[in-house]
Structures are given as structure tokens and as C-alpha cells.
């Protein structure tokens, strides 16, 4: 049994303009000590997937309409509110993109890190304070006993992010969900934070769900990769499978539109033309078809199921794995382009 199993998760928001199908049938399994990366364009449902697992969807306007989230055999969606509160921060912890939204400006950093320990582990104030200092030290805050007494605004951006990680890891969670944990940070600080997460994972066997739009970070961290488009999973597989034999044209588009500094020549960037769809008015058939250079009649009519192309490697494309879909080769009336 996997540590976390998510199946056919559907989360929707009711807005003035209609129902937003933010997450529309997502399934995956996460093993202990593994890292799953979720990638995809802005608005594709990455954060909502994470928030659904944490049962943090504001209701109204949001609602988990269908699906299962099972943590060590226990159904998260059926838990009582008290059980969910006990789970959050203790068994599953989350690092949010903007550290200032989850650090309270009026409390000292050390006190905030200790809070989860007092609540979940029943530690005394003194024990929790000592453990908070230990955690700050662990995440590389110099002079931790002293800095624990600082307020968040006295920390630099990188230090706040590290304080957030310290807070998330204080209770030794089974799962750490990191939503764009390094997006706001400089690369040298990002490298410090990623190194730290890898180290802690190796030491404690924590499973990580890493949400990011940075394919470099994915290549660095992930065992498995899930690619989302318009609320749906379009590809899922091991990092090697997704990077070295990607199957979905959207994944090809992502990889080909990336400038790279590790390749000698300056290749031409091949952007994905067009705009991401509105989730209220998702195109019929495959949501990607209006931007897909390989789209055919069936793509405009029928939504492709996620299916296994190679063992453990799935894609949701009618033509994935067939001879009529070859990366970089688009058949048109005038012949081949690209």
C-alpha cells in the first residue's frame, strides 16, 4: 500500500461566470521517501490539488466533488474536522509559495515553529522552544538560539523560506507538500534550499510533493513527474521517462520552449502557440487541441483517457505511442513542417 493514494480527484469552484473545474480527475500514488513533482502552466490546478489533499479548499466557493484521498489506508476526505486538524502539520505539512502569508508577523519565529509541537506533540513551551532552535539550526540559520527570537520581518527572504521549512518539518511529517518553495528566491539560495530538502528526505524518509513550473528543479528532485493541463493529468511517469521519452505533445512543448544553458548551441525556442484555455469554458475533446500542432478530428470531439504507453508511464493523448505521433514531425496538407 502506498503512503498516499489519490484517485479521480475532482475539485470545483462555483463562480459568477460558471463552474471552474480546477482539478478534473487526478490520480497518483506516493511512496515513502519518494518525490513526486507536479508541473504545468499557471492555473492548471497544481495548488488546488495540494490544497484538496490538505482539505484546505474554501467551501464555498470550492468543493471536492469526487474522488478519494487515502493516507496510510485512511480516507482523508471522510475524516472529521478534528482529525483533519490533527493530520495537518503533523502527518502532512505544507510549504506555501509566499512565506509571509504563513508566518505571522506579530509572533517570534521560534515561537511559531514551536506551536505545532505544542499542539501535536504536547510539548511544553520550553521543550518546543528548544526544538525550534534545533530546527532553525538544521535548516542553516546561523546563530539559531539568537535568531529564534527575531520577528519574521527581521529575516531575509531566503531565511524566511528556511524558517517555513523548519516549521513544516518540526513534527517529522510523513509527507511534505512544497508549493513553489523556491520561486521567489535567487538561484544560489534556491540551491541551498533544495540541497537541504534532499538531505532531510534522505535522513528521515519524508515523501515530498513538489509543485513547480521549473523543469530544472523537477529534474533535480523528482522520482516521478505528473504534468497537468487545464485541471487534468496529461502525462505521468518516472522523471527519466517523462524527460527522455515524453509522450504528450504538451510535454514536448514545455521541453522545447525552454532556453537551456547546458547545451552548446543556442537552439531555436519552439513556443506552444496560443493561450491556455479558460477552465470555465474548456474546449471540447482534448483541452490541449487548440494549441496542439498534431491535433486531428478526433481530438476536437473526444477527450482522451489517461492510458499506459510503456510500463508505469501514462499519457492522455489519442495518438501517444502510435506511429502517427512523432515528436517534431507535423503532417500537414503541404507536407511536413518543423
Amino acid at each position: 500500500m502506498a503512503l498516499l493514494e489519490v484517485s479521480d480527484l475532482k475539485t470545483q469552484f462555483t463562480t459568477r461566470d460558471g463552474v471552474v473545474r480546477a482539478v478534473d480527475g487526478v490520480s497518483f500514488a506516493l511512496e515513502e521517501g519518494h518525490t513526486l513533482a507536479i508541473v504545468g502552466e499557471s492555473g492548471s490546478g497544481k495548488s488546488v490539488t495540494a490544497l484538496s489533499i490538505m482539505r484546505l479548499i474554501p467551501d464555498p466557493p470550492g468543493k471536492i466533488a469526487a474522488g478519494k484521498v487515502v493516507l496510510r489506508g485512511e480516507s482523508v476526505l471522510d475524516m472529521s474536522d478534528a482529525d483533519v486538524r490533527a493530520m495537518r502539520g503533523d502527518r502532512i505539512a505544507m510549504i506555501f509559495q509566499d512565506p509571509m502569508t504563513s508566518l505571522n508577523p506579530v509572533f517570534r519565529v521560534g515561537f511559531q515553529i514551536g506551536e505545532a509541537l505544542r499542539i501535536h506533540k504536547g510539548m511544553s513551551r520550553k521543550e518546543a522552544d528548544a526544538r525550534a532552535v534545533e530546527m532553525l539550526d538544521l535548516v542553516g540559520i546561523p546563530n539559531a538560539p539568537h535568531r529564534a527570537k527575531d520577528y519574521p520581518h527581521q529575516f531575509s527572504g531566503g531565511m524566511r523560506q528556511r524558517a517555513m521549512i523548519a516549521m513544516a518539518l518540526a513534527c517529522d511529517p510523513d509527507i511534505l507538500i512544497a508549493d513553489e518553495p523556491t520561486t521567489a528566491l535567487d538561484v544560489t539560495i534556491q540551491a541551498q534550499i533544495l540541497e537541504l530538502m534532499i538531505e532531510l528526505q534522505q535522513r528521515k524518509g519524508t515523501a515530498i510533493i513538489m509543485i513547480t513550473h521549473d523543469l530544472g528543479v523537477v529534474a533535480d528532485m523528482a522520482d516521478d513527474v505528473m504534468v497537468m493541463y487545464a485541471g487534468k493529468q496529461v502525462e505521468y511517469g518516472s522523471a527519466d521517462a517523462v524527460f527522455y521519452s515524453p509522450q504528450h505533445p504538451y510535454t514536448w512543448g514545455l521541453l522545447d520552449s525552454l532556453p537551456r544553458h547546458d547545451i552548446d548551441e543556442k537552439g531555436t525556442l519552439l513556443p506552444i502557440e496560443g493561450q491556455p484555455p479558460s477552465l470555465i469554458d474548456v474546449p471540447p475533446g482534448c483541452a490541449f487541441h487548440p494549441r496542439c500542432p498534431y491535433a486531428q478530428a478526433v481530438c476536437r470531439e473526444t477527450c482522451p483517457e489517461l492510458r499506459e504507453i510503456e510500463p508505469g508511464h501514462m499519457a492522455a493523448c489519442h495518438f501517444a505511442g502510435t506511429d502517427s505521433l512523432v515528436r517534431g514531425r507535423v503532417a500537414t496538407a503541404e507536407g511536413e513542417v518543423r
Partner: protein
Amino acid sequence: MGDLLRVEGLVKYFSTDQGLIASRLSKKVHAVDGISFTVRSGETLGLVGESGCGKSTTGRCLIRLLEPTAGTIDFDGIDVRALKGRALQEFRRDVQFIFQDPYASLNPRMTIGEIVTEPLAVHRLGTPQERRARAKELLDVVGLNPEHINRYPHEFSGGQRQRIGIARSLALKPRLVICDEPVSALDVSIQAQVINLLDDLQDQFGLTYVFIAHDLSVVRHISDRVAVMYLGKIVEVGGWQGLYDEPHHPYTQSLLSAVPVPDPAKQRTRERIILQGDVPSPIDPPNGCRFHTRCPIAQDICHHQEPELRQVAPDHEAACHFAKPFPIELAAVAPGTEAADAV
């Protein structure tokens, strides 16, 4: 090709106190602290560096959105800092700015036709009909539908809004465009559209760009030459290939090694140089070499003597007492071999 822009000893300090008690003792932010560079006509100079190192301040000084504290700026033989009145107006037609945030930089109450031709209106150029025609032409150039001239910014996506900003910057047929993080707020797939557009426009109109960004891969892709900034200083500058293949400053080396590349096998075997600590405050920059507090190879001299930019290879300068080619391990190496050698 000749130099279009020549910057010598550019300094910009901000004073930190807001009150009336502006004393000589008050602390100053050393945002840009004596930088020199040239931009050749028709080329793209990339300006990279981490948050707060002074990239935007440099860009803003170049077009006199900010008054420099010291230094000279020469644009095609004109002393930019001495410009006044009509001459300054004319300069502002030749040099344009593209902002980072495609949401904040467009007036929500103006139609995109009005936005795109606002510079023409400001400079009182053309009749309303002529301006409308020009707006359509500009929208077409940046790949937007000219029929959408009467729509408002909120009706467009982030990438489309950035195109509107670019169309506006082209309205006056500028010679130099300062692009401050023009693609940072965009998704990768949209980012590539805008980068390709900027490339095409450069070819089409012979534009010269100063391209500011913190993303090293984007900067490498678009630039002919690249300047790397750290805490208000240029630490390395040169042709893109030499600088990326053979960085001569340990900061450039660590930056390049810190950017993860989208290739799992490379990431698994790559040597990463993890710098310790945060970027120091520009209010109190370190003595000597500003990088010495985080530098893995710093020696005594680096604590008290500031290294000057000096030539290390053709079209390649670095400001490090120990400048030499520092290896970038993008290909597989056994851990601890090459990097230990470099340190």
C-alpha cells in the same frame, strides 16, 4: 559595429532616511557602485544577477528615470546626463523601456489602441487617424489582432499584455530598448513566444537591447554579450559563449552551477557549488571584494583590496584577484574531483 551606449563609472546611491534630518551620517544604499560597460549598435547586452544587485537601477539610470549619483552615460555621442528640454524629449524617443510586470504597467482604463500610441500622443505626433493606423500596424507587428484595438488590458492574458507593452515601446521607432525582466512573470511556453518576438523585432528594425533578467538561461539565449552583477558591481562581462563556457569569476561559476538543468541524469551527477549565507546588504557592502563573504576561494587580499575588472580573454573581463577559467560541470563527473580542484 560601433558603440551605441557607453557607460563610465555609473553610481547610484539611495538615501535610507525619509525624514528631514538628512544628515551626512545617514546610511546610503549602494545600489549601483561604479560600473562601466558599452553596448554595441544592434547587439543585445544581457544584465544578470541576483535580486537587489542593481540591475533595474542601472536600467532606470540609463534612460534618466533616475538621476545617477555619478558617472557618465554616452548615447551615440550625446552626454545623456546633460540633456534638458527638447533634447531630453528627443532622447526619450530614441530610448524605450519595457517593464517586468505586464499587469501593473498598462493603464486599465485605456484601450490597447490608446496605450500603444500613447507615446505618439505625448510627443504630439500624427493625427488621431494616423495614430489609429499606427496602432493597428504595431499590434500586427507583435502578433496581436489589429481588430482588438478597442479592447481593454483585462481582456488579455499575461503574454498578450507583455506584447502590448512591447508594441508601445516600438511606437516611436526607438534605437535602444531597455527590457527589464520582460518575461519573468510569464509561463515558460508563453515566455518563449515573447523571446522569439523580441528576437524577430531586433532583426526587423535593427534594435539594440539591454536585456535585464535573473534567469541565466534566458539571458544566454537572447544575448550577444553578458554582464554579471553582484551587489552594485559588474564582476564579469564578455561574449555569451566565453562567459558561459569558461566563467572567470567564482560568482559566475557558482551561479551557473546552481541553476538546475532540465535533465535528470545531468542533475544526478552534477557538481553543485552551494554558496553559504545570503547576499550581504547593499547598505553596508563588504570591504575589499564584495563577494569575499561567500566566496569559496577567498584569500586575505580579497578582504581588503577591491579587484578591478581586467581582461582575461578576448572580449572577456572579470573582477577577481584569482580570475582563471573555472570549470562548469554540466557533464557527468565523479563527485569531488573537478570541484575540489577549482577551490
